[in-house]
């Protein structure tokens, strides 16, 4: 069975649901026995969800227009 160190090196594809069937079986065998790695997998999934949904680096809608306007103005100015 995988050690925790081996599990932690390999579980990236598992949480992205991109692990091969073989790797998945090995990882799940370890997970079944290891409470610590269960916690790490669960909290990493929650981390990804929080980060993905946070919108902390989102450009406000009104700012899109001002960027478009400024960029196009500079491009047209150069073109003339």
């Amino acid at each position: 069975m995988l050690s925790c160190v081996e599990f932690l090196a390999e579980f990236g594809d598992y949480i992205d649901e991109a692990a091969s069937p073989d790797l998945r079986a090995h990882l799940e065998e370890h997970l079944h026995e290891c409470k610590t790695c269960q916690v790490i997998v669960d909290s990493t999934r929650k981390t990804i969800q929080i980060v993905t949904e946070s919108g902390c680096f989102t450009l406000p809608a009104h700012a899109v227009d001002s960027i478009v306007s400024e960029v196009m103005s500079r491009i047209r100015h150069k073109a003339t």
Partner: protein
Amino acid sequence: MSQFPTISSDPPRSYPQLVAVYGFLPNLFRAQSALPRAVEAEHQLIDAVVVRQGRLSRDQKGALLKGVASVRDNDYCRALFGHALPAVPDCNSALFDFSLKLAKHGPWVSKHDVVTLKNSGFDETGILEAVVTTGIGHMLCTLADGLNPRLDAELRSPAPGELLNIPEPLSWPEIPEAHLGLPPDSATGSPAYAVLREQYGFVPNLYQVQSALPALLGAEVRLLEAVLFSEDGLSRLQKECILLTISAANLNTYCTTLQSQVLNILGIPPEESGRIVEDHRTGSISETDQALLDECRKLASLPRGASKRFEPERLRAQGFAEPRIIEAVVVAGLANLLNTLQAGVRAVPDFPPGRVFGPKDLYPFSGKSRPISDAIPSEDPDAAIVARVQKGDIDVFEELVRRHSRRVFGALAGLVGNIDDARDATQEVFLKAFENIGRFQGRSKFSTWLISIAINTGTELLRQRKPSESLAEMEDDEGFRPRQVQKWEDNPEQMCSASEVNDLVREAVLRLPEKYRVAVLLRDINQLSTEEAAAALDLSIPALKARVLRGRLMLRESLAPHFIRTEKPDA
């Protein structure tokens, strides 16, 4: 055993020798049975360099080959090299580091790297052996990429690729300087020199540098004779054009110059060669040959990462018979071998170069930036608009800005940490993209190209900041282990307000070391696929995955104190 059938009924004479090396006849060589002379020449080169004991031991050379296969992410060659040399060799780390850099970042290899190796006790002959071994690794990986042999029954599937620590190169060697001295010209009367004089009219410096190893030189020239100088399949002109296209893709000034000279002798004027160097699709070559060069270019050793696979069916559709397609792959392998040799020894050009490659060929906006990747062909929803802009319709560029400004801003805000700076930089990114859109060739999605520009622009901005303004980053990855192992709440995001969550995430992301921050930004905030993010950062897919995972674990560590489950006291 391969997507190519075994054609020849006359097996190459070197088959028994190959069996002696590997214990069986690898499918990689079976797949080339239509070209028995090429197989024999490949074996002779492998024998002269890898099998024979030289300054480097066979174990050391085996370790270098396995390193190249890992850099190329080539499972077949990892299995093959691992089979031939199953023991874990004790390879000198300076030697291994040099070879890995040459394999992954050939154009960046400098005299300084060679001096470092000399200071570790290697003489010029040993260094030359390391360079050629790395080149052979590239050649065999190119053959495997193009011929796609089935894993032999005798080989074990390789374990998941180890993550190699190959630092990003910091500076391009601005002053080209020969890495190795020219040995006393003892090979003047050798048969190898006679062949080279007959073909080129002189002995190119790339070969003179290697004359101290006559067995190596002889084997290389035999490979040239078998693959390049013979004309019973593809024409010499077609093969020289493949060499030129791949040399240009590998940013190899010397080989591009030499190839252009040869093409000139074959009747191709320098301006036409120049067009092939810049973009082979703009030259006046036929549609059939354009397809040939398109496919062969995919086999160039630089860039790698998420490059598109070689597609033999496209060449079949253009009327190329199987032996011609196999020959094209073999010529591509030869090109990568020669390019690697030159990157390692840096022979002095034989002629004034018509085109000197520099860092701006990797990324047109900054001399210090990381290479841009333009290597993921796929259906691009922006392709039609980009084409209109390239034809001069400025106004439709507005749609591209509107579509991508949020994504570009998101990457920059996460990288530089300051909203105003990110907004200004977003504008700069679009202006740079507009100015350079003529150079965008559609080999990656436009959005991926744009994100590459954003990452480079943001990175430059960080570099320009005074140290006092730099972000307080978390400790780097050395020794990082998850420490927080308590359960989290079932719905952690409900434990605080949305704005509080945003603040926590922003702070945690900005504390990540830059390499992990960028990887997480592209995957989890910008929602790029693994392949797109790897291409935008010019990383191999395993390297990108490793950084994303480490970044996520570090974020988890930062966020854990806010979201762990608090045990309720007993009633």
